[in-house]
C-alpha cells in the first residue's frame, strides 16, 4: 500500500493511498467535526459538517468522501470553515424541531454537542415549524421525525450491517423522512428484526429506545464496561453502561468491527432487562411445600451429606449451563467429574454431542472443522443446512442477508422447515427429514464426480458416475434433474462457499459429518478452518464441548438420588432437563434468578452471580475467545461457583482438583490446513 503525506493546518500527516481526507486526519489525531459520518458505514457526505479547504481547490470539500492525495495542503479550522459549519448547524436547528429541553437525548445528542462546540448561541434563520409525525408503533423503539437531521446513519446500518433493508427514505428535500418497508410504520414492518442498531447509531433523538427514557442517557451513566453477550453462540462484544449500580443500557461496539457493532433484540433488550429480574438472594432449603432461608454453611453441609452416598452408588449427576464461562465449566468438571466421579453434562448436551462426534473425524486430522461466523461476509455462496439463524443466532442472519443482498452471494436452503430466508434463496430444497444425511452425502458425491470428470481425460467414466449421482440426488431430494444440476453447479461454481449448520438437527452426528464432507467436496476452505458455521446454542457452547459435555447422554435414562444444577437463568430450560430434575431424589439448584419452574424443583436453592457479576471467557463461533467482565460487583451474600464447590469439597474432606480439561482455545486449534482435510467415512 502506497504511503502518502498530507499537511493538515501545516502538520505533516501520513496515510495510505485510498484513504479519504477524514481517515488520514483521524489516524493522525487531527479533529474534523462530523455528523453523518460513522466509521464502518459507507460515507455519503450528506451533512457537510466535515468540509475542509484544500489549497489550489476553489471549492470546500467534504473530507469524508474526498480521497486523500499526496501533498494536499488541507485546512480544517479556518474562519470560513467555522462559519460554514455554524451556518449548517443553524439551518438544521431551524429546519425541524430541535428544542433540547424536551428531548430525551439531550446530553447524548451529537447535533447538540456540535452546536455547542461551534458556539451557536442563536439561530439567524426563521424556524420552519413543519409538522412531522412521531411513529410510536414499534413496541421497543420510537421514531420522531421532528428530530431527524437526515444523516441516514440508520438507513445505512440497517442495510449495510443488519442486511434487513427495513429503513429507507421517502419524499424529497425538507419533506424527506425515514420510513420502513415502502412507507409503512416501523411497528408494521415485516422486515424489521428489532435489533435496535438504528437507535444505537442515531446522532439525535429521532430513533430512541423507549426503555432508555427511564434507564438514563449515556451521560447519566457512571461507567462503561466491555464484555460479551452470553445469549447465543455468536458472543457479540458489548459495551454495558452502568448507572447507580445496575446495567442501564447495552450497546454493540463500534460500527467498524466485522459485526458492525450490531446486537440482536436479545442482547439489546434482554440483557439490561435481566438486571431488573427477581433474584435468589440467600440460600434456601426446602421444608415441605416451602423454602426457609439458611446459611451458606448449613446449605453446603446438607449438600455434602446428600452427595456422598449418591456418588458412591453412582446415582449422582451434575448439570450446568453452557452460558457459563470457560473457567466455571472447568471447575465444574474438575470437581464433579474428576474428583467425585459424577456424570456431568450441559443443558444443551444432546446438541453439542452431535457437533462433537460429527466433527471428530476432521478434528482427528488436525483440521479445525468450522470457521468464524463473520467469514460469511467473504463468502459467495451460503448453504443453509436446516438452520433458522434469525432465531438461533440473529447476527449470523445479518451476515447472511448482507452477504446475499450487498455482496451478491448466492444462497441454497436445504431443510425440512419453511425457508427462513424465503425470497433471498436461489434454490430451496425441502427435505422430508433433516436428520437424514443421504441428501448431503449424495450432493458431496456429485461434486466429487464432477470434479473428477474435469481431470479425467477420457471423461466418460467420471461423467457416467456424475450422471448417476445426479439422478440419485434428484431422487432423494424429490426434485427434478434440472434442479439437482442447478444446485451442483451453484456449489461447484462458488469460489468460497460457506455452510451454516442449524442446531436443531445437529443431534445426529451423521448430519454434522456429512456437512463436513460437503464442505470438503465444495472446497469450502477459509483461512481458519473448514467453511462451516455451526449454530451451537449459547455463548460458551464451544467451551462446554471441551469440558462438560459427556460422551454419552445419561440425564434422561439414569435414576438419580442427587442432581446439582447450575443455571444462569438467561435461557429457559428445556422440558427434558426439567423432567430429569424433577425425577431426581434431591436437587440442588444454583441460579441467579427466580426462574420458574426451575426453582420450584429445588431441594436446596442457592444464589449465583448473574452474567454481569461474573468474569471469565467464552469461546464463540466467531472463532475467538472473548472475555466476560464483571460489570457490576455482586451485591448481597452471593458466592461464585468456585467458593461453593470448595465449600462442599471441604465438607467432604476433599479438595477441588485442578481442571483436567483443556481450555476452550483447544477447540480453535488447527494444525492442518483445511485444504488437506479428508472426507469422513459415513
Amino acid at each position, binding site marked *: 500500500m502506497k504511503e502518502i503525506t498530507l499537511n493538515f493546518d501545516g502538520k505533516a500527516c501520513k496515510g495510505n493511498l485510498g484513504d479519504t481526507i477524514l481517515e488520514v486526519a483521524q489516524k493522525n489525531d487531527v479533529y474534523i467535526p462530523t455528523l453523518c459520518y460513522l466509521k464502518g458505514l459507507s460515507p455519503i457526505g450528506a451533512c457537510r459538517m466535515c468540509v475542509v479547504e484544500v489549497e489550489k481547490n476553489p471549492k470546500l470539500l467534504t473530507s469524508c468522501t474526498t480521497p486523500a492525495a499526496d501533498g494536499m495542503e488541507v485546512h480544517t479550522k479556518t474562519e470560513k470553515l467555522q462559519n460554514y459549519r455554524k451556518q449548517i448547524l443553524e439551518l438544521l436547528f431551524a429546519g425541524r424541531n430541535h428544542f433540547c429541553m424536551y428531548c430525551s437525548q439531550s446530553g447524548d445528542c451529537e447535533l*447538540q454537542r456540535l452546536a455547542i462546540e461551534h*458556539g451557536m448561541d442563536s439561530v439567524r434563520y426563521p424556524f420552519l415549524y413543519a409538522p412531522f409525525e412521531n411513529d410510536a408503533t414499534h413496541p421497543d423503539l420510537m421514531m420522531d421525525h421532528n428530530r431527524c437531521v437526515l444523516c441516514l446513519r440508520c438507513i445505512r446500518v440497517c442495510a449495510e450491517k443488519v442486511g434487513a433493508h427495513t429503513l429507507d427514505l421517502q419524499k424529497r428535500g425538507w419533506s424527506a423522512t425515514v420510513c420502513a418497508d415502502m412507507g409503512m410504520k416501523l411497528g408494521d414492518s415485516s422486515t424489521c428484526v428489532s435489533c435496535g442498531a438504528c437507535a444505537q447509531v442515531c446522532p439525535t433523538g429521532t430513533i430512541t429506545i423507549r426503555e432508555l427514557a427511564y434507564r438514563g442517557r449515556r451521560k447519566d451513566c457512571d461507567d462503561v464496561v466491555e464484555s460479551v453477550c452470553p445469549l447465543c453462540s455468536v458472543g457479540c462484544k458489548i459495551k454495558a453502561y452502568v448507572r447507580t449500580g445496575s446495567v442501564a443500557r447495552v450497546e454493540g461496539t463500534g460500527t467498524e468491527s466485522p459485526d458492525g457493532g450490531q446486537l440482536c433484540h436479545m442482547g439489546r433488550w434482554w440483557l439490561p432487562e435481566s438486571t431488573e429480574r427477581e433474584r435468589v438472594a440467600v440460600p434456601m432449603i426446602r421444608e415441605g411445600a416451602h423454602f426457609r432461608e439458611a446459611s451458606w454453611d448449613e446449605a453446603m453441609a446438607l449438600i455434602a451429606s446428600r452427595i456422598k452416598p449418591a456418588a458412591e452408588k453412582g446415582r449422582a449427576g451434575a448439570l450446568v449451563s453452557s452460558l457459563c464461562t470457560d473457567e466455571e465449566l472447568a471447575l465444574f468438571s474438575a470437581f464433579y467429574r474428576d474428583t467425585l466421579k459424577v456424570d456431568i453434562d450441559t443443558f444443551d448436551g444432546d446438541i453439542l454431542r452431535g457437533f462433537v462426534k460429527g466433527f471428530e473425524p476432521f478434528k482427528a486430522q488436525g483440521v479445525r472443522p468450522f470457521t468464524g461466523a463473520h467469514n460469511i461476509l467473504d463468502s459467495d455462496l451460503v448453504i443453509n443446512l436446516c438452520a433458522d439463524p434469525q432465531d438461533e443466532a440473529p447476527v449470523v442472519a445479518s451476515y447472511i442477508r448482507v452477504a446475499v443482498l450487498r455482496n451478491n452471494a448466492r444462497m441454497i436452503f436445504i431443510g425440512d422447515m419453511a425457508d427462513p430466508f424465503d425470497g433471498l434463496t436461489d434454490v430451496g430444497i425441502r427435505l422430508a427429514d433433516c436428520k437424514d444425511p443421504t441428501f448431503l452425502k449424495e450432493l458431496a458425491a456429485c461434486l466429487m464426480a464432477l470434479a473428477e470428470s474435469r481431470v479425467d481425460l477420457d471423461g466418460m467414466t467420471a461423467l457416467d458416475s456424475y450422471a448417476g449421482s445426479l439422478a440419485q440426488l434428484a431422487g432423494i431430494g424429490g426434485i427434478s434433474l434440472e434442479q439437482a444440476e442447478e444446485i451442483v453447479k451453484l456449489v461447484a461454481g462458488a469460489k468460497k462457499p460457506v455452510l451454516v449448520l442449524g442446531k436443531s438437527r445437529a443431534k445426529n452426528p451423521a448430519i454434522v459429518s456429512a456437512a463436513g464432507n460437503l464442505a470438503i467436496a465444495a472446497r469450502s476452505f477459509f483461512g481458519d478452518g473448514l467453511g462451516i458455521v455451526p449454530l451451537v446454542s449459547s455463548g460458551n457452547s464451544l467451551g462446554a464441548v471441551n469440558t462438560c459435555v459427556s460422551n454419552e447422554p445419561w440425564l434422561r435414562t439414569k435414576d438419580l438420588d442427587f442432581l446439582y444444577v447450575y443455571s444462569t437463568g438467561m435461557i429457559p430450560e428445556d422440558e427434558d432437563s426439567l423432567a430429569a430434575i424433577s425425577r431426581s431424589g434431591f436437587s440442588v439448584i444454583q441460579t441467579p434468578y427466580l426462574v420458574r419452574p426451575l426453582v420450584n424443583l429445588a431441594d436446596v436453592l442457592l444464589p449465583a452471580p448473574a452474567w454481569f457479576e461474573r468474569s471469565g471467557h467464552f469461546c464463540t463461533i466467531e472463532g475467538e475467545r472473548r472475555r466476560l467482565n464483571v460489570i457490576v460487583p455482586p451485591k448481597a451474600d452471593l458466592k461464585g461457583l468456585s467458593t461453593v464447590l470448595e465449600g462442599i469439597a471441604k465438607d467432604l474432606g476433599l479438595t477441588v482438583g485442578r481442571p483436567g480439561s483443556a481450555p476452550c482455545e483447544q477447540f480453535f486449534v488447527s494444525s492442518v490446513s483445511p485444504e488437506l482435510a479428508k472426507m469422513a467415512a459415513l
Partner: protein
Amino acid sequence: MSKPKIATVWLEACAGCHMSFLDIDERIVDLLDKVELTATPITDFKEIPEVDIGVIDGGIGNEEEKHIAQELRKKAKIIIAWGDCAVFGGINTMRNFMSTKDVLEGGYIHTASTVNPDGVIPHGEVPALLPQALPADNVVKVDVYVPGCPPDADTILYVFQELLEGRMPKVPSDMMRYD
C-alpha cells in the same frame, strides 16, 4: 458615577431564568454593589426606566409581550436574551405547529378539564396572540444571547460581569447549554 441600571422582563416563559439568576445566591450582594436593579419581576416595579442593560426572559407570543420587548429595547442600551425561549423560541413554539384558532379552542374549549358550555374565548380584555410564538430577536435587536433552559446561574453572572468590565460577552462553549 452612578451604578449601571438593569431591568429585566418576564415574557412568555416559566420563571426558570429568573430563578436561575437568583441561584447566584450570596454573590447577588456583590452584584448589587455594582449595579442597580430597577424594574424586574423580583422588584415588581411597573415602569421600565432608562437602563444600561435590559434582559428579556421568554419568547414573544402576544401583542403585550411584543410591546414590552419593544419598550425595553427603546430604554436599554444593551439587550440580553435569557434562556431558550428568548433565544430560540423554546417550548412556546410547540403551538406554532397549529393555527392560533386551534390553540385557543384547544385551550379554552376542547381541553378535557375545561367547563365552557358556551364556548367563550376571551378577547379584548386579554392581549391578542401573535400568529406564532417567536424568539426575542425576531421582534427586537438582541445584543447578547444566553441560551439554556435555564442558563446556569454562573453563566448569567458571567455575562453581567463581562458587561461590567466593558466587554460584549459571548457565552463560551463550556458554559453553553440548550436544556
